[in-house]
Each structure stands twice: as structure tokens, then as C-alpha cells.
């Protein structure tokens, strides 16, 4: 209880003081009365009583101290004092506060993103036991680098799984939902029914999928997300059992899932069961083998290694067919890999986020160094104050504590502003972040972020405050108390202090340089990415993706495409147009595998694998794909008996060997379906980077769409090369297609450049962010250097004045100051380069086409740094200073200054600069007075 009362006394100071006062007053009165009774007069009695008592204020203070919790009282005192000091120097406080707010705010925002995306557990129960599962055939590669498991492996494993208690497939796809008369473009999820309970979701209404509904041929059912139900279906109470058209097909709604459920990302608005094709008994059943994205939950007590072992065993039990080779490439016996689901989802952005984290940490350190320098230089002005306090008994520890408290108060202020800044930054991030950025919804300010901010505040306090505090509390008391600033100036500007200040500046320069190097690398990498030749010409091309209604006659479908094309070509502003089953940036893959004679002659046959396009004439012209040999498709090819084929150079080189490729003929290329069909290669084209600028070119083959064979299918992509801006034709094309067939579903109509830009959104985001950090760091470092050096120069005014009096020219003074500034910058550059080289491994994953030790970036960055920092910092200030006549502190100063100025004035008069000289005198004397 005593503790509690002491706390109360600490906090309620005035009340405590009043009580003690009263107690002591009582004592004095009693003593006075005693003396009066003993015969003294009132006045003398009082005097004697006081003498006997002692100094009331001193006793009161001692009593107060006994009452209070010592350290807490000191802390309260220090805080009040710190606040007062801050108010007295508003510009210092403001700049320090903003600097720290910037550092802490940016760091907290990045931390929240990093934590949310990389570290926070997935929002599903027992998320640490959920893993991604995929199969690899070592030596072979999947198309587009996708990680799949084959359905054969799945069915083999799912019979008797021991290491996992649930194994299922999931996926995401772009789809259109018909709402009223409109087709709404959105994303849907596919998920195995067994996975929904694992993901811990209970429906708001209705029920979840049953396993029977995931079988082929089962009635089509769908689960709607709450957002979709509210926004598009107006919270229809009778939604369960209603029919909904998705991509032209009718689905029955069986349930509504709550808004908080997000799987596999935040973009899906509805879910349907993942139908995993059963394996047919036909051993060469190519059309029955499919790949799928799979996840599993570890059975209790099982480890990932055990799951991998079981999976590998299952995968090897399955025979390798042509279709398997199409999926996984030609390689060795399959191996199953397992990875925690959370890490897997964030995998692609991990390197970028780590770079971002390092960048913002550097920014924070620069901010701290800046503020530390500010405190160091300000300590000079407070030497006398500390000397006074030391002379009346403050110990060194006490002074250090007080200085640290000031830094702490400033850090807390910076942290509060930084918190708002972090919140604002995160809103901007979620607004500007690229589409499909993984786990963005898991990024928010929560207790982890607050804990981080607290830690960052404490750390900045120590970083900014400890050195200046230790330095400030150590000084020569007598020297500081002496009159005049000359002594104190010397005392503080000693070599030790200058070294400390220089160390901080060098550190700032080094970190700023590292940031600039990182930004330069990212910019170059992004430029490389954007300037990759994708094999086609994206501008000006308009694309339109269309889904033909299901169940319609295939012949009618083919006619639709032809009619649409002829109408599109008739539109004004169209240079060429074509249609195909796929287009660039299209996420679907169509892969064909077939045997070919081995061109190298090593084995009789090799398995050729290529992305297979079915297109109409005009498609390649519209896309601007370059022809290397032979010709492109023509109208007459559509009706011919031979199957005409175009190949790309990669395919020709890999599978068709040396020699003339155009004119090659194959009989029964697709063994299973061809009956005497002859396939002829009529041309060779350049490879197209269908999967984005950062993908590898792959072998590609093109077939012309015909009435009987090689139909376009239900999903048709139109590509139109326009003479003007593509957006102009968007509405006409859309209307045209709608007119042609009311039931057709028109998905996205947009310029191809939009798709290309969207595919580069993530690198663009990362580059923009790091560049912003680098710029901020540069500004911070530059202002830091400027402030410190200009202050130092002003401190050396006396020295500079003496030098001028001894005949030094302005240029040599300039040189003197510049040299010191450059020394700092150079050392900073050297350290920065070393640091950047050391961090090169970190940058590796975030770069494209540029090595982390790219020499050009390393060369450019220091130049940028030098350009910005040294010159502005040293130049103007030193010029001004050097032009001020010599002055010294002390009473004779004014006289000396006047004389000096007089001399210059006289010189100036000779050259006709009378007025300016006189003005300078005035400024000089005023300054001399103010200095005291």
C-alpha cells in the first residue's frame, strides 16, 4: 500500500506539497510558541525557530523525495522539462519530429505489409498444417512453370492416405456471371468439397458441397460469396435454389459463404466444386490426364518429409503416359514436393518485400543519424545549462537520463505522427498495389504493428539519444561556466566530437548510397523488362475475349467467329483482325505432345511438346508476329484437306533439325486421332512470349481453324490491329459481337497494352516504392549534411575570419571546407558500395535481366550522391561566411569588426562597392552582439 501512496504522491505533486507544507508549518509554529513562552519576542522567536529548523524549502524537498518514487518523479520532471525545451525551439523540434515520423511511419507501414504477407498465419484453422503439394519430373519442365499434381497421382494417393488427412485441389479462374442483362467479369474459385471444412468456413445460408457434387456429370452447383450476394443479387432471401448463369452455363446456388472467407486469394466471389477427372482404364488415355493445383492437411503427428515420401511413392506407382509428358515434360521418376501453404502463396513477392524491408530500414537509420546529429550540435548551446546543473549536484547519470528523456519524448511524438503516416501509406498501398498481390487483405495495423512501433521508438531513442547524451554530459564544468563562447566552442568542437559527427555523416552517406544503388538496379531491371521484345507488337492492338454459349452447335460457333471477323474487318480504323483460342497474357495453356523423328538421329523418336494455338488467318498479322520463312495462313487453308501448320523458330530448332523446314510433311502426326491426315509446315515465325515479358520462349505451333478439325472452341479471343487508338473501337466491337449473337458472353474488351502493363504491375510497384525511399533518403541525408556542415562552418567563423585577415582568398577557404565535406562523402561512398555488394544476394530475386553487382548502377549512384550533397551543402554557406569580415568574441570584437569592415569598406569604395560594405558592418556588429 505504501507503494501505491508513493505513486499517488508522485503524480499528484501539488497536493503532496501542500500537505508537507502544512506539516512543517505546524512544527515551526509550535517551536515559535515554545520560544515565546520561554520569553522571546515574537519576531526573535520565529527567527530562532527557523534557525533551529533549517531551510524549510530544503527540508520540504527532502521530504518530498522520501515520499516519491524517485525515478518516476525524475521521469515526470524530465518529461515536463523536455516538453518545455521542445516548445522553446520550434524549428528544431518540428524538423526532428518530421524526420523521425517519416522514418518510423514508413518502417511501420512496410513492417505491416511484410508481416501480413510473409509472416501472419493464414486465416484458416490449423493453418500451419496446411501445405501445397506438387509433382516434379526432374529434368522436365511444366509449361509456364506451373506446379501441378496429376489426377492419376491424386486418385492413387487419395485411396489410402496416411500422412495427410485431407488432399484436395483448388484453383481460380476468370468468369462472367450474368446479372440481369449484363455479364459481370469476375473471378471464381474451384475447390474440392473436402477442403471447405478444413478451411474452417461455415455457410451463412444453405450448405457446403458434398463429395458427390465433385463427380463428373453431377448437377452444377455453386456457392456465392456474401459480397456478390449483397452487391449483385440484392440480398435475395430466396437465393438458395436459384439458378445463376456463369459463363453461359446454369448453376444452382446451394449456399452463401460469409464475407470474411477468402480462398485462394481475395479476388474470388463464388466457388464451384473442383471436378477431378477420373482416370480411364485405357492406358493411353491422354484426354483423361489432367494437372491440378493441390493442397493437403498434414495428419496429426506427421511431418512434411513424410508427406513428400508418401506422395513420391504414389506418383511413381502411376504409369507415365504421353499426356503426363505433356504436363510435366520429359524427365526422371516423379518427386513430390511439399511447402507450407502460407509461404507458397506469398512466394513470388517474397524477394521484393525483403528488398523493401531493407530499404526502409536504411531510411530509418538515416533519419536517426540525422536527428542524432541535430542533438549533438544542439548540445553545444546547452553546455552552460548542464554546467550549472552539474555544479549544484547533478550526477552524470542524471544528466544522461534527462537527455535521453528528451530524445524519448521526441521519439514518442515522432511515433504518433508516424502511426498516422503508416496508416495513410497502407491505404495508398492497398489502393495502388497490383492486382493479385498475395494476401493483401491480411495486411492491416494491429497489435503486432503497434508492438513494432513501440520497439522502433525505443530503438530510435537509443540510437538518436545515447551518443549525444553521453557526449553532452561530459564536459569541463569550469570551462563551460566561464564567460564567453570562445572556450565552449573549442571545448565542444574538439576532435572527438568532430569524429563522432563525421561517423554519423559517413553512415548516412553509406546508407543513402545503398538505397540509391538498389533503386538504380530496380529501375534498370524494370526498363529491361519493359523493353523486352515480346515477339509481337502490343500497340495498337485491341483484344476481345468471348465465351460461346455451351451446348450450341460447333458449326454455328465456327460461323460466328468468321462472321464476326468479316464485320470487324469492315469497321473503319481496322488494319487487320483475327481470332484464336489463346492470346498473349492469357492464363490458359493448351499443350500438344506428339512423337517426331529425332533430328539428331540418336534415338528413333523424340516427344515433341509445344503450346498449341488454333487460329484464323489474320491473327498473326494482327498481333504483328514476325514471319521468318514460308508464309502465314490464308483463307484457302481453311478448306484444304491437308492440315497446315506454322511452327516457331524454337520448335524448328529443337524438333525439326537442320534443313528446310517449310514444306515438311508428316502423316498421322496425332496418332490417336489422325487417319491418314497429312500435316504440312507452311511457315516459321518468331517466338511469342505469351506468358509475359519475364517468361522464357517456348516452342509453339499454330493450326488453322477449320470446319471439321481443329475448331476454335468455346473460348475465342479476337485480336484487332487498329490504325488509331484501340480504345476507340472497343464499344463498336462490343456492340457488333452482341448484335451477332445475343447469347454470347463478352468478357474483357481492352487494348493489349493494358494486359501487358498489368503483367508488369508488381515490378513497377516495387521499383516505384524503392525509388521513393531512395529519394527521401537522399533528401534526408542532404539536409543532414547541409545543416551540420553549415553549422560547423559558422562555428569556425572565427577561424575563417582570421584566415581571411591573413590574406586567404575566398576560393581557398571554399576549398578548405569543401575538402572536408568531400572526405566524408567519399568515405560514405566507399562504405556504401561495400554494403551494397554485401546485400547483393538480397536483391537477386527481385531483379530481371540485371545482375545485383551491375557495374553501371554502382558507378552512377555515387555520382548522383556527390552531385546532390557536397556541392549544395558546402558552397553557399561557405561563400557567405568567408565574405563576412573577421570577428572575434569579446568587447573588443565590435571595434575589431568595425575596423576590419572599415578596411574592406575602403577597399570596396575604391571599387565602387560602398553601400554593400556599410551594410556588412551593420550585420557583422549585430551578429557579434547576438553571439553573446
Amino acid at each position, binding site marked *: 500500500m*505504501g507503494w501505491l501512496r508513493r505513486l499517488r504522491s508522485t503524480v499528484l505533486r501539488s497536493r503532496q506539497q501542500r500537505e508537507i507544507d502544512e506539516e512543517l508549518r505546524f*512544527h515551526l509554529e*509550535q*517551536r515559535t510558541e515554545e520560544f515565546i513562552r520561554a520569553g522571546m519576542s515574537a519576531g526573535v522567536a520565529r527567527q530562532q525557530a527557523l534557525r533551529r529548523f533549517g531551510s524549510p524549502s530544503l527540508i520540504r524537498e*527532502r521530504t518530498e523525495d522520501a515520499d516519491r518514487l524517485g525515478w518516476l518523479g525524475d521521469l515526470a520532471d524530465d518529461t515536463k522539462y523536455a516538453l518545455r525545451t521542445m516548445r522553446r525551439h520550434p524549428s528544431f523540434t518540428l524538423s526532428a519530429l518530421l524526420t523521425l515520423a517519416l522514418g518510423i511511419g514508413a518502417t511501420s507501414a512496410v513492417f505491416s505489409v511484410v508481416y501480413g504477407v510473409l509472416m501472419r498465419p493464414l486465416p484458416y484453422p490449423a493453418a500451419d498444417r496446411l501445405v501445397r503439394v506438387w509433382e516434379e519430373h526432374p529434368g522436365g519442365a511444366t509449361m509456364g512453370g506451373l506446379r501441378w499434381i496429376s489426377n492419376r497421382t491424386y486418385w492413387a494417393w487419395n485411396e489410402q492416405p496416411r500422412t495427410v488427412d485431407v488432399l484436395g485441389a483448388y484453383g481460380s479462374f476468370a468468369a462472367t456471371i450474368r446479372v440481369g442483362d449484363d455479364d459481370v467479369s469476375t473471378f471464381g474459385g474451384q475447390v474440392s468439397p473436402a477442403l471447405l471444412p478444413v478451411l474452417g468456413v461455415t455457410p451463412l445460408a444453405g450448405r457446403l458441397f458434398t463429395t458427390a457434387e465433385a463427380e463428373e456429370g453431377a448437377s452444377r452447383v455453386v456457392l456465392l460469396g456474401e459480397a456478390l450476394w449483397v452487391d449483385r443479387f440484392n440480398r435475395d432471401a430466396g437465393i438458395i435454389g436459384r439458378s445463376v448463369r456463369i459463363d453461359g452455363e446454369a448453376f444452382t446456388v446451394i449456399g452463401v459463404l460469409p464475407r470474411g472467407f477468402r480462398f485462394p486469394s481475395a479476388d474470388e466471389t463464388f466457388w464451384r466444386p473442383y471436378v477431378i477427372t477420373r482416370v480411364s482404364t485405357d492406358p493411353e488415355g491422354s484426354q483423361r490426364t489432367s494437372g491440378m493445383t493441390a493442397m493437403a492437411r498434414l495428419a496429426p503427428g506427421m511431418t512434411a518429409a513424410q508427406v513428400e515420401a508418401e506422395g513420391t511413392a504414389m506418383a511413381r506407382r502411376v504409369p507415365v503416359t504421353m499426356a503426363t509428358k505433356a504436363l510435366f515434360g520429359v524427365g526422371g521418376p516423379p518427386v513430390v514436393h511439399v511447402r507450407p501453404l502460407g509461404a507458397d502463396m506469398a512466394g513470388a513477392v517474397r524477394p521484393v518485400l525483403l528488398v523493401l524491408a531493407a530499404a526502409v530500414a536504411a531510411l530509418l537509420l538515416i533519419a536517426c543519424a540525422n536527428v542524432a546529429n541535430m542533438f549533438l550540435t544542439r548540445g553545444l548551446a546547452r553546455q552552460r545549462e548542464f554546467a550549472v546543473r552539474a555544479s549544484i549536484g547533478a550526477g552524470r547519470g542524471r544528466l544522461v537520463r534527462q537527455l535521453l528523456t528528451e530524445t524519448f519524448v521526441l521519439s514518442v511524438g515522432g511515433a504518433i505522427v508516424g502511426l498516422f503516416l503508416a496508416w495513410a501509406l497502407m491505404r495508398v498501398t492497398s489502393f495502388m498495389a497490383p492486382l493479385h498481390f498475395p494476401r493483401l487483405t491480411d495486411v492491416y495495423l494491429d497489435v503486432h504493428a503497434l508492438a513494432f512501433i513501440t520497439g522502433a521508438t525505443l530503438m530510435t531513442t537509443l540510437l538518436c539519444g545515447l551518443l549525444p547524451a553521453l557526449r553532452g554530459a561530459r564536459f569541463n564544468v569550469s570551462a563551460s561556466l566561464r564567460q564567453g563562447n570562445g572556450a565552449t566552442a573549442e571545448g565542444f568542437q574538439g576532435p572527438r566530437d568532430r569524429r563522432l559527427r563525421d561517423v554519423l555523416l559517413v553512415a548516412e552517406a553509406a546508407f543513402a548510397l545503398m538505397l540509391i544503388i538498389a533503386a538504380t538496379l530496380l529501375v534498370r531491371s524494370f526498363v529491361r523488362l519493359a523493353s523486352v521484345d515480346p515477339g509481337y507488337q502490343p500497340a495498337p492492338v485491341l483484344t476481345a475475349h468471348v465465351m460461346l454459349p455451351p451446348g450450341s452447335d460447333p458449326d454455328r460457333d465456327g460461323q460466328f467467329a468468321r462472321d464476326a471477323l468479316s464485320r470487324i474487318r469492315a469497321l473503319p480504323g481496322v488494319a487487320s483482325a483475327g481470332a484464336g483460342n489463346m492470346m498473349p497474357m492469357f492464363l490458359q495453356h493448351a499443350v500438344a505432345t506428339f512423337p517426331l523423328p529425332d533430328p539428331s538421329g540418336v534415338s528413333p523418336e523424340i516427344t515433341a511438346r509445344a503450346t498449341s494455338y488454333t487460329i484464323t488467318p489474320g491473327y498473326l498479322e494482327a498481333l504483328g508476329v514476325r514471319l521468318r520463312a514460308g508464309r502465314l495462313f490464308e483463307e484457302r487453308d481453311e478448306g484444304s484437306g491437308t492440315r497446315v501448320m506454322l511452327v516457331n523458330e524454337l520448335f524448328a530448332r529443337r524438333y525439326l533439325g537442320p534443313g528446310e523446314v517449310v514444306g515438311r510433311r508428316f502423316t498421322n502426326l496425332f496418332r490417336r486421332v489422325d487417319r491418314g491426315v497429312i500435316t504440312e509446315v507452311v511457315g516459321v515465325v518468331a517466338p511469342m512470349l505469351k506468358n509475359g515479358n519475364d517468361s522464357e520462349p517456348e516452342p509453339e505451333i499454330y493450326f488453322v481453324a477449320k470446319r471439321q478439325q481443329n475448331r476454335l472452341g468455346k473460348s475465342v479471343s479476337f485480336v484487332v490491329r487498329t490504325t488509331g487508338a484501340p480504345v476507340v473501337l472497343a464499344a463498336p466491337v462490343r456492340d457488333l459481337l452482341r448484335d451477332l449473337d445475343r447469347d454470347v458472353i463478352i468478357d474483357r474488351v481492352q487494348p493489349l497494352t493494358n494486359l501487358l502493363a498489368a503483367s508488369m504491375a508488381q515490378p513497377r510497384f516495387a521499383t516505384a516504392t524503392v525509388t521513393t525511399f531512395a529519394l527521401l533518403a537522399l533528401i534526408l541525408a542532404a539536409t543532414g549534411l547541409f545543416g551540420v556542415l553549415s553549422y560547423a562552418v559558422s562555428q569556425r567563423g572565427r577561424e575563417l575570419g582570421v584566415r581571411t585577415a591573413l590574406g586567404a582568398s575566398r576560393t581557398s577557404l571554399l576549398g578548405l571546407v569543401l575538402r572536408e565535406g568531400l572526405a566524408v562523402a567519399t568515405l560514405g561512398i566507399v562504405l556504401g558500395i561495400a554494403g551494397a555488394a554485401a546485400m547483393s544476394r538480397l536483391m537477386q530475386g527481385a531483379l530481371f535481366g540485371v545482375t545485383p553487382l551491375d557495374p553501371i548502377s554502382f558507378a552512377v549512384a555515387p555520382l548522383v550522391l556527390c552531385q546532390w550533397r557536397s556541392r549544395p551543402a558546402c558552397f553557399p554557406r561557405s561563400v557567405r561566411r568567408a565574405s563576412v569580415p573577421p570577428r572575434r568574441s569579446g568587447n573588443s570584437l565590435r571595434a575589431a569588426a568595425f575596423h576590419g569592415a572599415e578596411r574592406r569598406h575602403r577597399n570596396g569604395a575604391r571599387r565602387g562597392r560602398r553601400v554593400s560594405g556599410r551594410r556588412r558592418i551593420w550585420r557583422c556588429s549585430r551578429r557579434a552582439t547576438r553571439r553573446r
Partner: protein
Amino acid sequence: MLHRRKPDALQGTLDLLVLKTLSLGPQHGYGIASHIGSVSDEVLRVEEGSLYPALHRMEHAGWIKAEWDVTENNRRARLYRLTKAGERHLEEARDKWNRLSKAVGKVLRFA
């Protein structure tokens, strides 16, 4: 300026005298000082500068309890009284003092 708890013999003696005084009944600070002075025939004069800090310190240590009350002269004064813990501490302090004085006596008597 800062008070560190430096337990020294002199401080302990003051504590002992105060506790003993209070064991005779509740008293305010002035009364304690007067009592000690008068009983010891003015040989022991309490340093009043240390009295009140000591009283507050002992209060927080839990040996004495304080409350505001009105004296016979209708004046408000802060009265201190001994607690149970204080009584125990008094016994210990008294024993320690006796041991100390006996030891000093032995050394002095040694011829």
C-alpha cells in the same frame, strides 16, 4: 538532491528513538522532537532537517502510520502511530543497539 538509501548508524539511531517515542503513544513530528530532547536532557537534539524525511521514509516502510488529526489547541497536525511491523522492528533495533553498546563498553573497559 537525490536521496539514496544509505543505511548508516546515525540514521538507524534516529529511527530507533522515533519508534520508541511512538510506542508510548501517537504523536506528531514536533512532539517527537520535543520528547526526545526533554527525556535526554537536551543532550540529543534531533536534527529537524532529517526528522521529517525520516518520518516519511518510515511511513513508507510500513513501520508507522500517519493521519491528520486535530490537537488540543484545535490545530491540524499529522499524527504518527506505531504499527505491528514497527513494533517488531523496534524490538530488533533495540536488541541491535544493546549489542552494540555492550560491545563498545567491553572495548572501553579493557585495561
